[in-house]
């Protein structure tokens, strides 16, 4: 059952932020959303203490196992194979959109709606627009120096900005929101800062090589 507090998982919140709260229409190119969600899936593992991301993008897995099934499957992959975070972002981005949508469907946040037109694919549509909009409010705290922000909220805002959702997020902040967001991200743990920077790099790479 959908709740305003959300699932507590960064990728779920980022997915909802990247799509219209009523129609489910994506705000970004599908590849850019994929990269953002890939970063968010890795962020869930960092926040759960299951992996560490080192300067220059190395990834190592720890012993803690997250409760979520999708996060566990990502962790299992990270444990069996050594790759830099850039490769993990590229790999996870391929399927992250569908994986996260299905996880949200299981939690009854979105539902698959058929298209009226035969040439258009089906689309995941939020079940409750308020619940779908709530992640934006959680990320909004990172834009305002007067509001307390959680690590997950700051990470969500940082990843959202990195994958190109800045224009969706920043208008909801006060004057100087961009500077505040940069400052909040700077105060995150080195793992998360590296992950956000790598996500930004991957998105910029897509843009400069004309793939989004």
């Amino acid at each position, binding site marked *: 059952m959908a709740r305003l507090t959300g699932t507590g998982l960064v990728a779920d919140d980022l997915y909802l932020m990247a799509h219209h709260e009523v129609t489910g229409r994506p705000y*970004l190119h599908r590849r850019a959303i994929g990269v953002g969600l890939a970063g968010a899936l890795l962020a869930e593992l960092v926040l759960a203490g299951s992996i560490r991301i080192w300067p220059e993008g190395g990834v190592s897995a720890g012993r803690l196992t997250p409760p979520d099934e999708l996060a566990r499957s990502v962790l299992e992959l990270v444990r*069996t194979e050594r790759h830099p975070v850039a490769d993990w972002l590229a790999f996870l981005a*391929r399927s992250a959109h569908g994986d996260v949508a299905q996880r949200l469907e299981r939690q009854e946040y979105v539902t698959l709606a058929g298209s009226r037109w035969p040439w258009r694919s089906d689309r995941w549509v939020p079940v409750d627009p308020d619940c779908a909009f709530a992640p934006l409010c959680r990320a909004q705290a990172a834009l305002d120096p007067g509001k307390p922000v959680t690590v997950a909220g700051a990470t969500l805002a940082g990843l959202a900005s990195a994958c190109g959702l800045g224009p969706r997020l920043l208008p909801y902040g006060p004057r100087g929101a961009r500077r505040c967001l940069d400052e909040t991200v700077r105060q995150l743990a080195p793992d998360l800062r*590296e992950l956000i920077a*790598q996500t930004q790099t991957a*998105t*910029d790479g897509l843009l400069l090589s*004309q793939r989004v």
Partner: protein
Amino acid sequence: MSRTQSQRTRQSHVSRALAADRLGIPAVLFFVLAGVAPLTVAAGVIPTAYQTTGLTGIPAAFVAVALILALFAVGYVAMTRHITNSGAFYAFISNGLGRVAGVAAALMALLSYSCLQVGLYGAFGPGAAAEAAVHLGLHAAWWVWALVAWALIAVLGLLRVDITGWVLGVLLTAEILVIFAETVSGLVHPAGGHIGFGTLSPADLTSAAFGTFGVLAVVAVLGFVGFEQAPVLAEEARNARRTVPLATYLALGVIAVVYAGASWAMAVHAGQGSVVAAAAQQGPGLLFGLGDGLLSATAQFLFLTSLFAAALTFHNVVWRYMYALGRENVLPAALGRTGGNNIPKTASLVQSATGLAVICAYAAAGWQPMTKLFFWLGTTGGFGILVLLALTAIAVIAFFARDAHGEGAWCRLIAPALAAILLALIVVLAVLNYSTLLGVGRGDAAAWAFPASYAAVGLVGLTWGVMLKIRRPRVYSTIGLGAHAATGQLAPAAGEVRR
């Protein structure tokens, strides 16, 4: 299945999946050629060059420049393997000659690509005006049509790139087929009944004087602009060590054959002694006249779409440069921010504003669009690319002089040195003969003002680079990183300690 086997299967899964996503030679080649817009050069640049310079060695110049660029590409693609943000000249120059020089190169590249982009409105306007008058009975000034194209490009520049990429691909295929058909048709109907090879002779490169080669080379380089783009996809190419060089050389070969063939066919069809006069009289019709009926009409229509596609492509190249420099904070950070659909709106709008200002200025002054906007700004953009090519060749030598990175002497020293000498020679010859290139008198201000603009911009870049080095070392440390600027900004700047 045992646990070990299961792990091994999964282990190969990630690498296999990533490899399957990577681009092969055809995809990279298509990416490079899609930005070339062949009819723009074949019907626009070549006839105008025959007319303005009065020189007939253009076919030979395409072959000669292709060979020089092939030599240049040896070191260029070798260095691609060892740097990030490859594909942008300023990244090579930053890594080879230092970041201060890199900033100067970045601004010069921006000026070059911007000249190339804006100049195209000067050919589109008159072309569209003529077609509209003949086929639609609409009579409007060239600048009205130029503004229509400008408005469309301003909007498309804010849309998703994959849509425009698909359109560019279809146009490219049609253009190459039409040029091929026109070339064959022109060669089948030679003036005087026999095919002459004079314009392909190396002797024609220096027919008027030795400096003639510099003029012809600038014109020829215009046709090859875009070949340098293959390394942009180095990080996404399957076996980049093989794919990027092969795609680069194939692109050079295809471009050389298409343009040398078309310009040769024009000279054969009109006669070597008459081609300059025919170009002055017919303009782009010099190419269209090689075929007849449907072929000619198709070529005329595709010429307009080609000009439009080229303007759109260069518009995208300019905002990409601005975006990369904005991400690095070398230019204002607003240029490095994206809008709602991952497109850097500010960068795109800045280039649109530049185009609008230039079209309005030319319209207000009543300057001739085909020669003074299209050819003058186009060749000035080409001249800037030549300067950047020469600097990049020197940067390749400097980069490998510090560390050979396992590359052989041919790749890291001999080929780049030969390319640097030849490209520098062309730059000097072009500067000395810029009046011939523009078709003006020796004392004309345009003959020194256009090349001097690069010196001025370079000086501004050097000054800005030094200021960044002194005042903003963190920004300075990320110059040339492009997409990797975000991770580069996390690294400690000089004098800082990372905790």
